[in-house]
């Protein structure tokens, strides 16, 4: 989470420049050649929403049911035209292999080799690094953005070269000191790209958890392995079906959509009704229509929302607990998507609801949240995505109208808000030091223990050994001379080893303490705990 790539330039004059917000997510991306701007993108909400200007045309994209790395529905609005809905079909790693439009037609098909190199979907011949085609939404391998002009993949923290199968920059930390692979800091996904993915360029994660972190059940892995057949070995679907004939193509593809089958079932909260949902999903794919809800003129919400809506109002009682774990005495177990809990959910005044609950309330009533209720807007888009995946009407104009009003409505408000917020936080991000106190001379030094103000024992340190890792928000308020001098027999010296934001400094400190403990089996003498 330290440095980020900010500029790439090739010999032909193609230049890409990136900026990042204080969460180290990409904020802007600008690709130019000479004085011409080829592409400009602004990212919001961790990439969930982006504004892209390509060849002078502005496109807004909103990933409805998750991040760009796991969402299956994306809404794109080009200029002032009506928003279009697209479905992203992914393999078990989260790579986008097919994109279908709202009519069920194949809009794009992509194929990658094991290391992420784009190849022709029919012949499987890899494209030359300088001849890669532009991707429809710019994203492909494991959901990451392809910089096709450079033959690179931007993995947020680092740039990745799929031809080399290596990152262009080293990992800022040794992810797994217990593995020899961990010490190759340029390696991608522990050199095992079929099993692991790297969602942020800094941490390798299991392929299936990377694809959809909110599922977390073993069934999903089964799906993943099934999809491996679909995505990697390229089973029947892409070639035997006619992608332009949805009934034959996607219907025939249904069997291969083992991914699709478990896709719905993978959601633990849907487990009770997985069959119905999956059926609906198949129906969607095979006939471009959802369930019976499709026939309704107005949008009919998922029954679960309706049940919540119909829940008998109960008087507000005193909350017990705080934060997300807050429950209301006598009011049930809080609000969740499964039916049993919804039935006992308290009916609270709007102002008492969480942002998530407010968003759900607005969906029920087909109202747009107040313009300043950004949190509700945010959750609302997720619920629309959930609702669609559960079989909601994706063919009705009303739906897109709702998305247009509700989701793209927030786009008018949020950019300014986000940019202003980012700017304010960047200004507020003071420089924080991660320092180390090291023994000035061989000798005995005090060992600090949790729960005690004074040292409880002594330990021998050699000259230069670490006595303590720490961070300070205000480097100017440094240790006094006598404090440094009077620690141990010969004192310690203060060595600033890193300077950055608070988040960075704390992470570096924690990393160093954990590494120290991993190597020695105990904490540094001056550290009482791991923060």
């Amino acid at each position: 989470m330290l440095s980020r790539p900010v500029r790439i330039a090739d010999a032909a004059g193609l230049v890409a420049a990136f900026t990042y917000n204080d969460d180290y997510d990409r904020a802007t991306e600008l690709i130019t050649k000479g004085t011409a701007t080829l592409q400009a993108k602004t990212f919001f909400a961790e990439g969930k929403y982006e504004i892209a200007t390509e060849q002078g045309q502005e496109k807004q994209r909103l990933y409805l049911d998750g991040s760009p790395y796991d969402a299956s529905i994306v809404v794109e609005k080009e200029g002032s035209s009506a928003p279009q809905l697209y479905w992203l079909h992914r393999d078990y790693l989260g790579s986008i292999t097919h994109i279908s439009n709202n009519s069920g037609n194949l809009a794009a098909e992509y194929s990658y080799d094991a290391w992420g190199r784009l190849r022709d979907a029919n012949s499987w011949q890899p494209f030359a690094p300088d001849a890669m085609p532009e991707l429809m939404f710019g994203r492909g391998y494991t959901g990451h953005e392809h910089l096709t002009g450079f033959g690179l993949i931007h993995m947020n923290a680092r740039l990745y070269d799929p031809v080399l199968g290596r990152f262009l920059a080293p990992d800022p930390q040794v992810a797994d000191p217990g593995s020899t692979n961990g010490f190759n800091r340029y390696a991608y996904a522990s050199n095992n790209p079929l099993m692991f993915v790297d969602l942020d360029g800094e941490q390798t994660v299991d392929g299936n958890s990377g694809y959809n972190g909110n599922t977390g059940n073993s069934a999903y892995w089964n799906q993943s392995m099934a999809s491996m057949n679909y995505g990697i070995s390229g089973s029947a679907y892409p070639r035997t079906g006619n992608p332009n004939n949805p009934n034959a193509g996607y219907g025939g593809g249904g069997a291969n959509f083992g991914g699709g089958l478990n896709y719905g079932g993978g959601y633990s909260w849907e487990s009770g009704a997985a069959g119905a949902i999956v059926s609906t999903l198949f129906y969607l794919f095979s006939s471009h229509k959802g369930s019976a809800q499709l026939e309704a003129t107005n949008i009919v919400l998922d029954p679960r929302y309706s049940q919540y809506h119909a829940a008998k109002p109960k008087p507000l009682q005193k909350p017990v607990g705080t934060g997300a774990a807050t429950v209301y005495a006598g009011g049930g177990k809080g609000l969740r998507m499964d039916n049993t809990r919804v039935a006992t959910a308290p009916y609270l005044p709007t102002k008492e609801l969480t942002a998530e609950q407010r968003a759900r309330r607005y969906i029920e009533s087909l109202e747009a949240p107040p313009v300043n209720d950004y949190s509700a807007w945010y959750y609302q888009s997720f619920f629309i995505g959930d609702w669609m995946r559960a079989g909601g009407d994706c063919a009705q104009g009303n739906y897109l109208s709702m998305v247009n009003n509700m989701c793209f409505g927030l786009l008018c408000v949020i950019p300014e808000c986000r940019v202003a917020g980012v700017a304010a936080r960047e200004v507020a991000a003071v420089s924080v030091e991660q320092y180390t106190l090291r023994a000035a001379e061989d000798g005995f030094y005090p060992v600090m223990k949790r729960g005690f103000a004074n040292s409880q024992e002594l330990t021998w340190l050699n000259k230069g050994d670490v006595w303590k890792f720490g961070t300070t928000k205000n480097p100017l308020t440094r240790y006094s001379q006598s404090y440094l001098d009077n620690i141990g027999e010969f004192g310690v010296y203060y060595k600033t080893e890193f300077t950055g934001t608070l988040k960075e400094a704390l992470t570096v400190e924690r990393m160093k303490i954990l590494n120290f403990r991993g190597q020695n089996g105990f904490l540094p003498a001056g550290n009482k705990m791991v923060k």
Partner: protein
Amino acid sequence: MMAFRFNILADFYWETNIDKVLDLLSDTGYRRFFLEQNYGSSLEGLTVVLMCQDPNLKLKQRIRLSKKERKIYLDIMLDLNQFMGLIQKEREKIIVEKLLSEIPPIIAKYKLEDFNVSKFEMDLQSQMSKIL
């Protein structure tokens, strides 16, 4: 017999490699040497902190005589920007020169009774110049 505790510490950014200079000084055995010296009873210790910081921070040099401990604490101010661009040998030279030129006048300024400044200055020179 009175022992004189002389300690050199530092507050620095890692890229300046001042810890390497501290190690070199430490290898000369100056701490043990001064522990065996007796310059008088009015001063039992001297702690020097090499403050290598950005001058833009406008840090002031801290010089303090602790009568209770009979000890002097003082900072030697070093320029972080300058040290970032130097080779290690130059860093060593600058630090030794600063130690030799700044410490004796500061001690002399306190007009301590029965403290042999000239002897201390000679010993300091002999010990510190070992690394040059």
